[in-house]
């Protein structure tokens, strides 16, 4: 069997980097251990280069199990870009906190290896292994503040809920296999389409599979781990969980929903639509009462997942235009979400690391301490809410656009919920913004020293948020070309 090495070059590059990091960590001592971060960064850049080279290609290897097309490339670039940003916000955090740096970066990279395989995987088995590769290092990273009860608790909750949902998913997968006799996504779709009659058990199996990804994307009612885990983990890990891990979940969900179970869309679409409604409403409503910024961001990210689930509710079997639009909307939203949410976490890290502050009220007067950080947070939060001229607006726009491609009553219902929720969300986003800018600062707050890397990341993301807000074409030109099933 011939292997298309170029197709998996990014994965290989990242894997090699991970191993290099591990090796370097063994040989470095003391402060020198900080150097693993740049090594990881370099490796990521190499992977990005390889991925960029693949742009425009249509490749399939490992017997069609692994596919590279524009969709996959966009996703991979999203993951690798997020990785770079997370490396940037991690550096000082882990260097100063006396963590196991080398191991952290190794685990992080391993997790991202799983992620970048995700959008290319066209086989349930590969998807499963990739998902676990994303998850297992994440379980450990969540517990990396070893002496912290919060961190241990975060890891335990994350782990237990994660394994439970994986078990449910596996049960579902086993049933799907029983129905179709294959784990190949396209094969499953073909078998289901051929079977004609739809057994309730098959639908149940589909739902069980959805649960596994629902956990990753923290959809209601699989979201319970998210706020606790984000709050307890080291903050860069929380950022990674909130963005990259969630994106990976979406990558998997897109693949199974729009390839494997596409013939069943008429059944699962309404269910996912309802989940979307529940997710965004519950996430937003609970976020209203949060006083801890990280928990607020956590619930906000739950709500954001709800928005991203809306396009799933629009899917219809055989309706290529609608389904493509839905996939593109999700993809667009994910990219926008990555930009703004990592940025928000970046600012949170900058403030928290220096002052230990995470309570909302203590963000008062941040604007006087650090206008850059306050400005950054403002832009990110407004973007999360969807105010112009930020990329968040276009993310919502993309979803509405998908919903209106071919209007159904259900789509209208979803839109109404989207609108109402967008407004609710602004309640708490504005609360933060207001606190930062309009309230009086506390006495004796130390000045923020975010450090070069973090500042750079925040600035880049902030500029990105605004630039993409003005020229969303930079993303949408790419996403609109992508079609999930082009070579699948």
């Amino acid at each position, binding site marked *: 069997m011939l292997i298309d090495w170029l197709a998996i070059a990014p994965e290989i590059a990242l894997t090699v980097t991970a191993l290099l990091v591990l090796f370097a960590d063994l040989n470095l001592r003391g402060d020198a251990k900080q150097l693993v971060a740049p090594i990881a960064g370099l490796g990521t850049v190499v992977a990005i280069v390889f991925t960029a080279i693949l742009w425009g290609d249509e490749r399939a290897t490992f017997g069609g199990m692994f596919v590279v097309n524009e969709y996959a490339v966009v996703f991979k670039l999203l993951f690798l870009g997020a990785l770079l940003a997370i490396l940037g916000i991690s550096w000082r955090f882990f260097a100063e906190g006396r963590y196991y740096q080398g191991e952290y970066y190794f685990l992080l990279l391993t997790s991202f290896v799983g992620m970048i395989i995700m959008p290319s995987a066209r086989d349930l088995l590969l998807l499963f292994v990739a998902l676990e590769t994303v998850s297992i290092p994440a379980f450990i990273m969540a517990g*990396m*503040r070893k002496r912290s009860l919060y961190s241990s608790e975060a890891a335990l909750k994350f782990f237990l809920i994660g394994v439970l949902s994986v078990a449910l998913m596996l049960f579902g997968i086993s049933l799907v296999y029983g129905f179709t006799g294959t784990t190949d996504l396209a094969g499953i779709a073909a078998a289901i389409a051929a079977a004609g009659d739809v057994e309730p058990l098959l639908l149940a199996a589909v739902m069980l599979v959805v649960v596994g990804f629902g956990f990753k994307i923290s959809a209601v009612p699989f979201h319970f781990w998210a706020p606790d885990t984000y709050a307890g983990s080291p903050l860069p890990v929380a950022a990674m969980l909130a963005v990259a891990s969630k994106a990976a979940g979406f990558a998997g969900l897109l693949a199974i929903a729009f390839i494997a179970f596409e013939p069943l869309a008429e059944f699962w679409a309404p269910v996912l639509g309802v989940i979307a409604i529940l997710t965004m409403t519950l996430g937003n409503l609970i976020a209203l009462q949060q006083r801890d910024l990280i928990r607020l961001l956590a619930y906000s990210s739950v709500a954001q997942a709800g928005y991203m689930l809306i396009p799933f509710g629009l899917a219809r079997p055989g309706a290529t235009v609608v389904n493509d639009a839905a996939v593109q909307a999700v993809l667009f939203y994910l990219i926008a979400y990555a930009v703004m949410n990592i940025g928000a976490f970046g600012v949170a890290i900058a403030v928290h690391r220096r002052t230990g502050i995470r309570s909302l009220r203590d963000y008062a007067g941040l604007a006087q301490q650090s206008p850059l950080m306050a400005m950054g947070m403002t832009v990110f939060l407004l973007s999360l809410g969807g105010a112009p001229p930020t990329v968040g607006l276009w993310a919502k726009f993309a979803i509405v656009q998908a919903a209106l491609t071919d209007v159904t009553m259900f789509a209208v219902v979803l839109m109404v919920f989207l609108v109402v929720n967008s407004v609710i969300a602004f309640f708490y986003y504005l609360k933060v913004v207001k606190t930062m800018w309009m309230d009086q600062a506390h006495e004796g707050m130390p000045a923020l020293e975010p450090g070069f890397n973090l500042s750079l990341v925040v600035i880049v993301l902030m500029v990105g948020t605004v630039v993409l807000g003005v020229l969303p074409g930079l993303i949408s030109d790419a996403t609109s070309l992508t079609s999930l099933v082009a070579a699948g």
Partner: protein
Amino acid sequence: MTGHDVVFLLVALLTGGAALLTVTSKNLFHAALFLAVTLAGIAGTFLVMRADFLALVQLIVYVGSVAVLFLFGLMLTRAPIGREALDGQNRGLALVVSGTLFVVLSTLIISTFGGERAAEVAGPSIADIGISIFADWVLPFELLSMLLLAALIGAILLARREDGESGEPMPERRIELSDEPVTHAGAQELPAGDSKPELTAGGDR
């Protein structure tokens, strides 16, 4: 009802009973041992279904190592013994949820696969499996190796005793600004030295 079915039924009864005992046993070690029995029983069902290789792997990996791992885990954590200690307040909830799940799933399974029978039971040979791993499944396999490495390193990282790097920031002055608890009332009961809220770290170390 063929011979296979009869044998399977016996093994299944054994496995199911052991499983029930695993989750209800009042004694930690008994629970672990019943788990071993359950896992072995599962290996037995594999054998009945002619999945010899898998049965072997099951025995080696699970009965041989995982169950032992759990025993070690139990011993290391010196958990107390007795039902009250072992079961939480959620037993009723657990019963309802798992019972409902079982009823729903088994109803669906019976209605779908109720009449399905295999005339003869035959599995792929070990050779087929071996070839398949390195022909069709090489990518997940390699990825799995990465996963196992990460799990290994991670497990060590978390389980090892501290000797320097601990994920603990340097103890420094602490800023208490807000009069409201950060997450919940238990926050102030934290053991000293806990890293939350994070402390002001010096620019360099």
